[in-house]
């Protein structure tokens, strides 16, 4: 026959704290509330990437309608596109990208997935057109930008017409870099003006980190008629 003897109360620090909290009704209520809050917060943070994708998807639907509207076309012609408004559609067949790009690269604007650097030329114009896109979260349109290679095409469709760029074999605005190339986050040379029609895409690198940027640069190939 075996006998069981009650275990003595834990006297270490955590055990003492746990016992003390267990034996106090108000502390139990507080702990209960805290655990619920922790659970809710944890689930919310775990779901954050999926929630941003859902948000971006719904936002894209609105931007898509805006891009086709006569009002935006007129605003585009008069160069009055506001930050966060639809600017162009970007298509990259090689990695299955087809999203609306908004004007601006603020955190708010970039919730659309991709944004046009203010101060760079409008799409298809002479100069270095620069577009930044999310690599994780918010639809992650540039998630696979590292898989692009020279010769791949990038199409921009604006309210007044479009054009096609072809990815260059080497960097255009920085020296001695094969495509795609990596720069630090403060290397703004990649978006400096060019005399010809150029397109620059930037995104964070490596995935999930914002320490560096991955860059793709392309040269103008041909114009396209407006998409009606």
């Amino acid at each position, binding site marked *: 026959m075996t006998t069981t003897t009650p275990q003595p109360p834990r006297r270490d620090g955590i055990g003492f704290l746990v016992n003390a*909290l*267990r034996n106090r009704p108000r502390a*139990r209520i507080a*702990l209960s509330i*805290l*655990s*619920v809050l*922790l*659970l809710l917060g*944890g*689930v919310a*943070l*775990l*779901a*954050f990437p999926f929630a941003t994708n859902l948000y971006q998807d719904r936002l894209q639907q609105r931007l898509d309608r805006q891009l086709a509207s006569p009002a935006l*076309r*007129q605003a585009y*012609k008069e160069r*009055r*596109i*506001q*930050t966060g408004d639809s600017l162009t559609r970007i298509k990259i067949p090689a990695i299955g990208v087809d999203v609306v790009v908004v*004007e*601006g*690269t*603020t*955190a708010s604007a*970039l919730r659309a997935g991709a*944004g046009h*650097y*203010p*101060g760079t030329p*409008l799409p*298809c*114009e002479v100069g270095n057109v620069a577009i*930044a896109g*999310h*690599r*994780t*979260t918010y639809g*992650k349109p540039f998630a696979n930008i590292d898989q692009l290679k020279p010769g791949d095409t990038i199409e921009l469709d604006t309210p*007044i*017409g*479009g*054009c096609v760029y072809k990815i260059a074999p080497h960097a255009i605005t920085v020296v001695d870099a094969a495509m795609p190339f990596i720069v630090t*986050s*403060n290397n*703004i040379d*990649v*978006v400096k003006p060019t005399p010809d029609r150029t397109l620059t895409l*930037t*995104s*964070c*690198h490596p995935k*999930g980190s*914002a320490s560096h940027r991955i860059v793709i640069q392309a040269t103008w190939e041909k114009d*396209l*008629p*407006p998409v*009606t």
Partner: protein
Amino acid sequence: MRTLRRIGALGLTAFVASALVAGGSASANTPEVFLGQATGQALHLSALGLDATLGQSLAKVQSSLLAEANGAGDLAVLASKSTAKVTQDGQSANDPNKCATPAIPDAVAAILNAGLACSSSSASISAGAPVAHSDGSVASIDLSANNVLKSATANLQIGQTLDSVLAPVIGAINSATGQNIQLAATDSITDLLNALTTTQTLAVRIGRSTSDVTSSTGKIVSVGTDSGGEIDVLPVGALNNTPLAQIIIGSAKASVTYDRATGKATPAWDPALVTVKLAPFAGLPATTVSVAPGVTQTLFAGTPLESTISVADGRSFTDANGAVHAVADGVSLHLFKGLGVNLADVLGLKAAATPYAVALDLAHAEALGGGAVATVSPTPAVVRDLPRTGGAPWLPVLGGTMAMAAYLTRRYALARK
């Protein structure tokens, strides 16, 4: 409290700095402006008191959302005119196949026969890009002045010999071909005049003139084109069953391409080339003479049939507004110098300004384009860092940690003893 104020001041500074860095929209001081226009004129005819412009077209687009096209078979006949004009995006207008008989004065109606003069016009604006097209044409012009000429030539003093009459022609042929053709002596110009008074005088077949202006993302293209035509002098073959002369006029084209990105307009022109085929007669072989742009060629000099062909070259210029023009100046034919005054007398018409019986101006095409790119105000945006597009990977990790903490809390801290 001091700490709070410091935090507040730092926050405000960061806000102002971020606003400057973020910048605003792609604003502009002036929006883009452009203009494209093309015109074509198939034929201007001055003959026996008739002064008519036939087969005219004009197309125009402007950046202020205007697309307009106007065509005319005969500029003087309303029923042959077409017009199309739109001023709003998504609109289109079409005015096809407006045809009418050209207006011919009663005095010359018996000897001048004109086919239907027609025109078409269309204009549209799609996705902010205006497009305009028009064309104009006249089917034919036939001049049968033989009966009138019979009266007129009765008054002419015909004393020239064939040698003196055709010497300039022979000289031109020998010069052009390197040959040494000699005339078969003493035939008379009377042979020609007999033909002139017994057969149809002129048959004019001209192509249509078209004007097109199209706009796209990158450029505005204005193109005026005239398809040329053929003029047969004494067309029914009074001499060896062939027309005395066939004047074949090639197409003329003028275009201006305006680059919307650079604001530059580039002109181009392709003037008409003229070929004259002379029938074999009086010992002369059948002869073909090309009249190059910038050259004037005289045929049958010194005879009542003296005619000149002037082929203008193309040119371009920039007007006071900065628009670039391209012009293919066309071909001028002045026919039958010795008959104009006499024909006017016979028909009871006021004498024409020139002694020529018939004056034709063909194959004139013109295009213009110009504009200015939008001027963008200096952007306040200063890029100091490339934007973050993939950070915060720790959020899901934090979420997992929090969920685990919640589980542990309920598992151990809240578990019943």
